[in-house]
């Protein structure tokens, strides 16, 4: 395995001071990617553009110019981010050949601070999944056990970070897609408050729960990446105001009120996961945190709500992939209807089709009230329940996923079982609050993460507490 990277700020500092060259860092990253091909974490590299940008940065430094807080830091973006220099496929055949004419805001902001995107990571096609097995191209292998999945949908990004390909990677989290692979693969995965990072230029999955966040080795690095990306964007009307400086997050756990979500510790929870999480909670207590058990009686409904709202939005968001303007188009179509049916029929994989069908069904007239509307009502109830709970505690803690990484193929014939992987992560998406997964222990050679959550817009506080927890785990 490639050697560990330094903290992001240290790399950038050395680049700015001329001790490291951006071009060398890009070559190192590309070499790491190449040497870890067997894990199939990467769909494509953006090497030509990355090299050109690195050379530019090195020239600027020679000329004495400031090049930004992430000068020369290479990173990998999940392949649902629109990035110049390569195809953006979202791991779907229907986007084959799509070279984006614009870039996502997140990438623009990172680039403006000198970071360099070197590759695009694998994912479940359109981010539909929890294992990368739904990628239309290939399944990424877990860096700790090649017979197991890395988690998903940001499985390529998680594996890339764990394999030290680059110091950080970007993911998207619609129902747990950053936190769960972070837990399965063994890194930090951060899901910000909904709206804190612009979704502009990121292939939409479910617009009302999609967020963009970093996968890193440390909480501090996650905070740096968030600090660069966070804040309002005129291209995304759902973005919110940011807090000041997410990197000033030194704190300790004494007096912090942390709630244990009772409902997450039921029979379905794997014993090793339970042990690891309980051991971590004991350490938090020893460090002075006030641990309190809380009950969120409606949280069991979060998954049901999610699997109505998410497919509804998915079915709508995937309407634009019609083979008429970009990406794959069925060439031999005899007429417009054939072009639609065959382009979408050939271009979408099984899971995308499954979600389009469910979503179309729940939005149909006569069913809308029974499904979509009711799901929105329960969603509001859940939001209220979390708000009430956050009057009693400042943070919540629990497992990220009910099990460690499962074997490739183990759940792929059972979509419902696969959906259950999200059971502990979806609530944060439904409610819109920030949540983080940090490594907490192992089950054999498999990492296990622990999840921390905080109230809406309390990202800075959450990062601070997560950093304090990380230090004692």
């Amino acid at each position, binding site marked *: 395995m490639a050697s560990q990277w330094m903290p992001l700020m240290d790399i950038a500092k050395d680049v700015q001071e001329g001790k490291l060259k951006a071009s060398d860092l890009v070559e190192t990253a590309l070499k790491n990617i190449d040497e870890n091909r067997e894990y199939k974490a990467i769909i494509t590299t953006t090497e030509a553009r990355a090299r050109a940008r690195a050379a530019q940065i090195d020239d600027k430094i020679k000329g004495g110019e400031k090049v930004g807080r992430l000068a020369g830091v290479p990173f990998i973006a999940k392949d649902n981010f*629109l990035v110049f220099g390569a195809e*953006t496929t*979202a791991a779907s055949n229907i*986007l084959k050949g*799509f070279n*984006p*004419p*614009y870039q*996502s805001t997140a990438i623009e902001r990172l680039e403006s601070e000198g970071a360099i995107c070197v590759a695009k990571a694998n994912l479940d096609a359109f981010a539909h999944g929890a294992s990368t097995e739904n990628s239309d191209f290939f399944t990424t292998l877990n860096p700790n056990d090649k017979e197991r999945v890395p988690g998903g949908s940001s499985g390529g990004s998680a594996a890339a970070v764990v394999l030290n390909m680059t110091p950080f990677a970007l993911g998207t989290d619609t129902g747990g897609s950053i936190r769960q692979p972070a837990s399965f693969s063994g890194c930090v995965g951060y899901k910000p408050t909904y709206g804190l990072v612009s*979704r*502009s*230029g*990121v*292939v*939409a999955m*479910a*617009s*009302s729960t999609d967020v963009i966040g970093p996968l890193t080795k440390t909480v501090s690095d996650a905070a740096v990446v968030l600090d660069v990306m966070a804040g309002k964007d*005129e*291209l*995304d*009307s*759902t973005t919110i105001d940011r807090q000041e400086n997410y990197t000033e997050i030194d704190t300790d756990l004494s007096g912090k009120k942390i709630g244990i979500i009772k409902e997450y510790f039921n029979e379905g929870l794997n014993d090793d996961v339970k042990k690891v999480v309980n051991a971590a909670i004991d350490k938090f207590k020893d460090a002075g945190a006030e641990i309190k058990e809380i009950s969120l009686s409606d949280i069991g409904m979060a998954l049901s709500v999610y699997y109505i709202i998410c497919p*509804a*939005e998915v*079915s*709508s968001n*995937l*309407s*634009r*992939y*019609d083979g*008429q*303007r*970009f990406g794959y188009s069925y060439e031999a179509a005899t007429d*417009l209807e054939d072009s*639609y049916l065959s382009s979408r029929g050939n271009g979408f994989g099984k899971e995308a089709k499954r979600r389009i069908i469910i979503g*179309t069904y729940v*939005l*149909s*007239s006569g069913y*809308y009230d029974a499904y*979509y509307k009711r799901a929105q009502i329960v969603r509001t109830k859940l939001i209220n329940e979390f708000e009430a709970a956050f009057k009693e505690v400042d943070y919540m803690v629990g497992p990220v996923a009910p099990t460690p990484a499962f074997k490739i193929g183990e759940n792929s014939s059972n979509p419902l079982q696969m959906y259950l992987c999200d059971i502990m992560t979806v609530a944060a998406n439904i409610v819109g609050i920030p949540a983080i997964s940090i490594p907490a222990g192992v089950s054999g050679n498999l990492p296990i993460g622990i999840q921390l959550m905080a109230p809406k817009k309390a990202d800075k506080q959450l990062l601070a507490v997560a950093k304090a927890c990380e230090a004692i785990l």
Partner: protein
Amino acid sequence: MISSEVRNKYKVTVGIECHVQLKTKTKLFAAVGNDAREAPPNTLTSHICFGLPGALPVLNKEAIYLASKAAFSLNSRPQKFSKFDRKHYFYPDLPMGYQITQYDEPIVLGGNVKIEVDGQEKTIGITRAHLEADAGKSTHSAGKDYSLVDLNRAGTPLLEIVSEPDMSSSSEAKAFARELYLRMRYADVSDANLFYGNMRFDVNVSVSTNDDLGTRTETKNLNSFRSVEKAVDYEVNRQIELLEKGEKIIQQTRGWDDAKQKTFLQRSKENADDYRYMPDPDLPPVILEDSYINTIESEMPLMPEDWREKLQSLGMDNSQTETLLEAEVETDEIEYLALIEMHLEDPDLAKFIANWIVNLEIPLRRDETITATLTTNNRAKIYAALYDLYKSDKLSSTNLKSLFSDIFNAPVSVSEIESYAEQKGYIQLSNENELNEIVKKVIEDNSKAASDVANGENKAIGFLVGQVMKNSKGKANPSLAQDLIKKQLGV
């Protein structure tokens, strides 16, 4: 043809939906130019108009402002809370696979518009008006195995105004369409250019012999008041003929063939489309503050109905009033009403100006063979100068007309108007001494006629006045001349 007896058995019900293109600089959800009239195909587009992956709509605030003004022009107020929804269907000119529209929380709810037909006033209810993004334009050329799509229009903001089914004749439908047009123009929310399709009307028509509504048909995309009227007439006759034959009316969408003056079947609507409406998660709801709404209300320009009141108080009749109201919005450069309003404190002058605008200036402006040099900024002064000449009896109405026509396309400065009129011989002779001399001469030269007049034969006085005019080379004030003739002859 159906007899009027049969025709009179049926009650006609008409409702209208009207799409108004708002005159925003940019599109409803994209920072791209909105004026597609002269642009080559697909040049007014962006990643948003093109529906690329990751593209998010961003609401144009100007569209909310214009829709709010439109609300007041419909005797309503904008809703404090409204939101956007997705309406799904597949078509190549709809890039995202859904149209962004307002489903259950539109920006305008309720309202009304007054119309007048044959002297009868009627109030037509407005159900709602909602904002939506237009689709692109598809061209299906005959004999080609492809169609062309132009996305320049995709995303243009439309306000769809939906009326109650309150109209009961084609003339009411026409009057309503015209009144909506005037209001959108006076509120300054749309160019409302019918030629460019800035306003399009869909008419819903049904007939019935009792109080229950009949099955309706919708005739779409009418782009003139006349076609609204003709389409309603055609549908009423078609439906009555079918019913008289014992057939049923089928709910359908129909088109209008302007050349044949007929509606034709586009598609049957027996199975309702399922558009799978859902709230658009990319767009937060629109929440308007009271202060915002009140400011717009306080800044609303006068509506046609306000102008009607003002003009009619000057004594103008219906036809003059409507001519003025329409002419006002035919061109952006010339303001007629403001000119009249400037002088409302002097009703005689205001009325003089209003009359001369209707009778002279508007016909001249509409005459494309005449190039106007009468500019906006000196019109007020010129009208005032003409009025002075007219009021001091220096101009006959015939000469006033000639003088105005001259000035209309040959620049004459305000200070030179009188000398110009003099030079052209338009000024009439109203000096009694001078005129008395001429009268005296005419009486001497025409003793026969003079004695006839003296003997009470009034017919002859016209001849004498004519002689005075001739002797004065047309300058004499004819009524003064007549008075003087009578005086000299002692009648």
